[in-house]
C-alpha cells in the first residue's frame, strides 16, 4: 500500500514539475504565438543553474557555490531568462517555422555544450554534489518526498495564478493581439518586438523554474535530461491539453505523463522480451501518434482556449472582481 502511495507521490511530483514547464510554453505559444522548439534548453538552464549555484564545491566542474536553496533556484530561473533574452534578441524576428528551427538548434547546441564542456557542467557524467535542501531535517524517505511534492504543488499553483492574472490583464490582451496579427497591433501603436521578447523571456523563466525543481528532485542533472525528447513531450502535453488554456496545459501534463508512464509499464509487463529493448522507441511512436491524432481531429485540444477577455461589455466591472 505504502508502495502505491509512494509511487503516486513520485508521479504527482514529476507531473507537476512538467505542468509548470507546459504553462511556460503556453505563455509563449498559446498566448503569444511564439514557436519555441527548444523548450529543453531553458528547462536545462534552470536545472544546471540551480544545481551549480546550490551544490557543494566540486573539483571536476564549475560550481559548488552552495547558495541558500531559494537563491539557487532563482539563479537558475534567471539563467534561463538571460539565455532566452539573448536567444530572443537574435531569433525573435523570425516567423513561426523559422523560429522553431532556430530555437531547436539552440537546444541541440545547449545539450552539446553541457555534454562536452566538462569544466562547466561535468560533461556526460552530469552535475553532482547537490544536497537536497532540508535533507538533514526530513531525511531521504517518504516524508521528504511528500514535503517536496507540497513545494512543487505550491510552485505550480503560484505559476498558474500568476499566468491567469497576466492573461486577463492588458498585457494578456497585448499578447493575444500580437499572436493574432502583429502588423495590425503595430498599426495601433504597439511594439511587437518588445512584447514578443518579454513573453519569450517570461515563459523561459517559468521553464527554468520547472527545470530547477526537476534538478532538485533528482539532486542530479546530466545531458540525458536535456534531450529533444523532453521538448517533444512538453509540446505534446500542451497540444493535447489545449493550447491557450492554462487549465488545459496542466491537465495535458498529467494526462500525457500518465499515458507515458502507463505505456512504459504496460510494455515492460506485457510485451515480448525482445520488444522490451525498444520500449522507449515504442513510447515515442505512441506519443507521436497521439499528437498527430489530436491535430487531425481535435486541433484545439481537450480543453480548448476560451475567449479570454480582460473586460466584458455587458456586466459591470464591479461584478467581475477585477
Amino acid at each position, binding site marked *: 500500500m505504502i508502495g502505491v502511495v509512494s509511487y503516486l507521490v513520485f508521479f504527482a511530483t514529476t507531473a507537476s514539475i512538467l505542468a509548470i514547464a507546459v504553462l511556460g510554453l503556453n505563455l509563449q505559444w498559446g498566448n503569444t504565438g511564439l514557436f519555441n522548439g527548444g523548450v529543453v534548453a531553458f528547462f536545462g538552464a534552470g536545472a544546471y543553474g540551480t544545481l551549480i549555484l546550490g551544490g557543494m564545491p566540486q573539483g571536476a566542474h564549475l560550481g559548488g557555490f552552495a547558495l541558500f536553496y531559494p537563491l539557487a533556484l532563482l539563479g537558475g530561473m534567471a539563467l534561463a531568462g538571460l539565455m532566452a533574452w539573448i536567444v530572443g534578441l537574435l531569433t525573435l524576428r523570425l516567423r513561426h517555422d523559422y523560429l522553431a528551427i532556430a530555437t531547436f538548434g539552440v537546444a541541440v547546441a545547449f545539450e552539446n555544450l553541457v555534454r562536452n564542456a566538462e569544466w562547466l557542467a561535468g560533461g556526460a557524467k552530469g552535475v553532482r554534489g547537490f544536497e537536497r535542501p532540508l535533507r538533514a531535517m526530513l531525511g531521504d524517505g517518504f516524508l521528504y518526498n511528500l514535503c517536496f511534492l507540497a513545494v512543487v504543488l505550491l510552485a505550480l499553483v503560484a505559476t498558474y495564478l500568476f499566468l491567469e*492574472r497576466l492573461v486577463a490583464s*492588458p*498585457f494578456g490582451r497585448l499578447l493575444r493581439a500580437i499572436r493574432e496579427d502583429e502588423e495590425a497591433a*503595430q498599426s*495601433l*501603436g*504597439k511594439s511587437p518586438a518588445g512584447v514578443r521578447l518579454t513573453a519569450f523571456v517570461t515563459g523561459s523563466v517559468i521553464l527554468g523554474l520547472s527545470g530547477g525543481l526537476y534538478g532538485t528532485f533528482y539532486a542530479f542533472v546530466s545531458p540525458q535530461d536535456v534531450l529533444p525528447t523532453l521538448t517533444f513531450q512538453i509540446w505534446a502535453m500542451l497540444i493535447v491539453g489545449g493550447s491557450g488554456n492554462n487549465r488545459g496545459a496542466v491537465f495535458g501534463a498529467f494526462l500525457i505523463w500518465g499515458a507515458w508512464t502507463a505505456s512504459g509499464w504496460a510494455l515492460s509487463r506485457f510485451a515480448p522480451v525482445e520488444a522490451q529493448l525498444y520500449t522507449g522507441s515504442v513510447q515515442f511512436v505512441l506519443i507521436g501518434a497521439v499528437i498527430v491524432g489530436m491535430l487531425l481531429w481535435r486541433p484545439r485540444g481537450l480543453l480548448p482556449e476560451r475567449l479570454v477577455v480582460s473586460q466584458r*461589455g455587458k456586466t459591470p466591472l464591479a461584478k467581475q472582481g477585477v
Partner: protein
Amino acid sequence: MAEAILSTHALSRSFGPLKAVDAVSLNIPRGSITGLIGPNGAGKSTLFNLLTGALKPDAGTVLLDGRDITGDAPNALFAQGIGRTFQIPRPFARMSVLENAMLAPTGQTGETVVGPFLFRSRMRDQERRIRQKALDVLEFVTLAPLADHPAGKISGGQMKLLELARVLMGDPALILLDEPAAGVNPKLTETLIGRIEELNRQGTTFVIIEHDMDFVMRHCEPVIAMAQGSVVFQGTADEAMANPVLLDAYLGATANA
C-alpha cells in the same frame, strides 16, 4: 487652400524594377476628407503604407504638422496621431470586439509583465476608463451589441467598422481609410459615411482610398488621382468628374458601372 496636416515631397518606393510610388508630392489639407483614387496597381495602398510607416521610402520625405516623420515606425506614428485601416480587414479574430478596441490606447499601465501586479489600482482605474471609452466608441460605430463577440465572427462590413473604432480609441488627428466601402452592404456604408462626416465636423482629417466614384464625388474634397505610381490629378471632385482624360484612362470602368 487650407494648411496641410500631412505632406510628402518626392516620395518614392520601388519593388525591384517596379516603381510603385514614384516621386509623389502632395498635401493633405487639415480638416479635409481627401479622396485618393486610381486604378488597381496605381500605388495607392503602397502610398498608405509609406505614410503610416508600414513601408520605408527609398527617397523623399513625409511631414506631419511640418515635422519630418519619414521612416518612423507604425507604432510611433499611431502615437503621433495617424490612424489607419486596412484594405482587407485585420481584426484580432480570437479576441472580443470590446478587447479589440480596448487594446488601442497607448501607454497602458497594465501592458507590462509587472504592471498588473505592482500597479493594480492605477491599472484598474485605467481599465474602467478605457472600457467606458471603448463602449462609447463601439456605440458610435453601432457595434456595441456585439461587444462580447469574437471579432473573427462578425461580418466583413462590421470588421471595417471595428477597425475604425480601434483607430478612434487613439484619438488620431488624421485617419487613413483603405477602401472602407468595398464589400460592405449599403446600410453599413451609410453608417460608416455618417460617422466619418461627424468626426470630420469635429476636426478629424481623413484620407480615403475608394473605387466607388459615387462615394468619392459625394463625400471627398479634394480628390487626388494616382496612376502608375504618380499623382496625375489633384483638385476638386467636380474638376475630377469634368476631366475626360482622367475618367477615360483611369476610372472608365468604375464610372460607367
